[in-house]
């Protein structure tokens, strides 16, 4: 913890600014997803990452472009943080030919070899093996890549995760299991689905692990950097738990939430624990950036995001004949 705080204070200025920039990018992206969805321009389901930005950004900023990630149903933030461009993301979310997956994957399946994104996954915990396998290949082929497996705490219910934790530790694979604990599995508090202490799930396999504040992007970055470099230098896998919160519903349609979580709880996180506000304030208090500079970042990104939305809305749907393509390589 203190080690992390210490390391956090050593983060170079440009990186500190970039952490802010990337979090704002995700926030703006998701706000537009919410808008597109409520305007019925986006098909399917939309699981917003708003409130959890510090985790994707803190972790992915500690990775190289060639490093691997696997993502989840709530994956927009991971994909953007790993380097996906908003225009191709929006296009995919709207089911357009220009999207990352030619419209075949949609919100829950964004994938992009160019940024090491092995793919979002609509099966909870379903990508634990894929991330571990990418790490296996990295070790076998000696490429030095690290793989990060993002998953929500709900995936702790999936047996596959434990098989992979065992394999990763046994074979000392360069994979980092990142548990985004936002407190809820859909509409159920995780305490109703999870026995014992989450960190012990990693200790069960003798795996290095750490729990940190998922709303403090500097802390996330510091902790992630430590274990990613450790893995890259042959130190083996790690399990990181970041405590966080999703501001919106499980998906955009999940409006009336009072029956499963108190409004006051939501309010507290939004007002007291917002990762962007917290980091912005810190940047200003520590003289790293001025309000004007932060506003400029925001404005730049608003322009970029709006252009990306326009691109996606104007893009065309795949020709129906494309349905039979890409079944086999």
């Amino acid at each position: 913890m203190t080690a992390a705080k210490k390391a956090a204070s050593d983060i170079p200025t440009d990186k500190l600014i970039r952490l802010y920039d990337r979090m704002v990018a995700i926030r703006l992206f998701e706000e537009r997803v919410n808008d597109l969805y409520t305007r019925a321009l986006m098909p399917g389901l939309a699981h917003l990452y708003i409130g959890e930005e510090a985790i994707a950004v803190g972790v992915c900023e500690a990775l190289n472009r060639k490093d691997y990630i696997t993502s989840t149903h709530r994956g927009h933030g991971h994909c953007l943080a790993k380097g996906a461009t908003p225009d191709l993301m929006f296009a995919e979310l709207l089911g357009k030919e220009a999207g990352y997956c030619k419209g075949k994957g949609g919100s829950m399946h964004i994938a992009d070899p160019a940024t090491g994104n092995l793919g979002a996954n609509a099966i909870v915990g379903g990508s634990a093996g894929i991330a571990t396998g990418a790490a296996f290949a990295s070790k076998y082929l000696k490429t030095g890549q690290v793989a990060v497996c993002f998953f929500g705490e709900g995936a702790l219910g999936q047996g596959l995760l434990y098989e992979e934790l065992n394999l990763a530790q046994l074979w000392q694979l360069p994979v980092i299991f990142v548990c985004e604990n936002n407190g809820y599995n859909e509409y159920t508090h995780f305490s109703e689905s999870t026995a014992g202490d989450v960190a012990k799930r990693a200790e069960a396999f003798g795996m290095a692990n750490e729990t940190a504040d998922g709303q403090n992007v500097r802390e996330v970055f510091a902790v992630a950097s430590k274990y990613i470099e450790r893995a890259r230098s042959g130190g083996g896998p790690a399990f990181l738990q970041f405590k966080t919160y999703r501001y919106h519903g499980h998906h955009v349609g999940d409006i009336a939430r009072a029956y499963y979580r108190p409004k006051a709880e939501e309010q507290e996180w939004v007002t007291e624990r917002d990762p962007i506000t917290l980091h912005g304030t810190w940047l200003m208090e520590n003289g790293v950036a001025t309000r004007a500079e932060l506003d400029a970042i925001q404005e730049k990104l608003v322009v970029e995001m709006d252009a990306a939305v326009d691109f996606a809305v104007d893009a065309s749907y795949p020709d129906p004949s494309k349905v039979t393509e890409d079944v086999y390589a």
Partner: protein
Amino acid sequence: MSTAAALDVRELTFGDAIKEAIAEEMRRDPTVVLMGEDVAEAGTTFKVLTGLVDEFGKDRIIDTPISEAGFTGLGVGAAMAGMRPIVDIMFGDFLMIIMDQVANQAAKIHYMSGGKWKVPMVIRATMGATRRSAAQHSQSLHAWPSHIPGLKVVVPSTPYDAKGLFKAAVREDNPVVIFEHKISYRKVKGPVPEDDYIIPLGVADVKRKGTDITIVALSSMVQVALGAAKMLEEVGISVEVVDPRTTWPLDEKTLVESVKKTSRCIVMDEGYFRYGVTGEIASIIQEQAFYDLDGPVRRMGAMHVPIPFSPSLEDSTVPSERQVVDLAREMCNK
């Protein structure tokens, strides 16, 4: 027309018919419990069970961790030990995670024990595409359990059938997998008697009488077949629509008799086309009605591709009324 339409009773949606079946069986038998993810206060992701927890409490409408294999296996043991659990598999696609517990355990325990142990449980899963849920949340996998001896498989198409078949499934002493078509939950309405009735598993239902061609349709495809039948009537083709209602046990007799009468047959299903249920049913029909057939039994199923997300691609993967009409006209040369 279906047995129910005859009676004049209130209409329920497909989803409410299932909720009523579960509520009635839970009132009747205290050993019936239902467990799954977000089934209690949330009333399932599809809001199909809303309210049940208020009547039966959290000890009988049980929220589980996201452990489909875990609570399905738990259901198998509970069934052996005197209960009648209903396990809820939110998306049928997740059956892939629980097949060992369903097909290696539940399906075989009665036989392996020489008939000594019974596994009276219901696995309720969903099926159906066109909800823009992409490849891992849109599949119709009923062909898999249908292949496994020891399981019974139910694929209801109407609210009336859904209630009667579900109640029968709960009273079965064998593991039953029931596939509920997601889009039908709200979209399909129909008459459902308030009284306690059972539809035995293994009895097909003629959803529409006709003389020129038989369409054997399952689950969601029954509505498509009925829609096509109306259009075909206009061009003078009289369609008989037969719904097996269960893939196993399978009411071969009713299917074959219909085809012997009409001499033409289309078998349609929303599952993947290849090595799915249409292959088995078409084979049985040509085996038993060959000499009455005017031409080969034809089949329609979901396009043999992973289900795409984009609306412009997804809709074409599921058989449409238009396609049925074209095929039927070709077969009847009209």
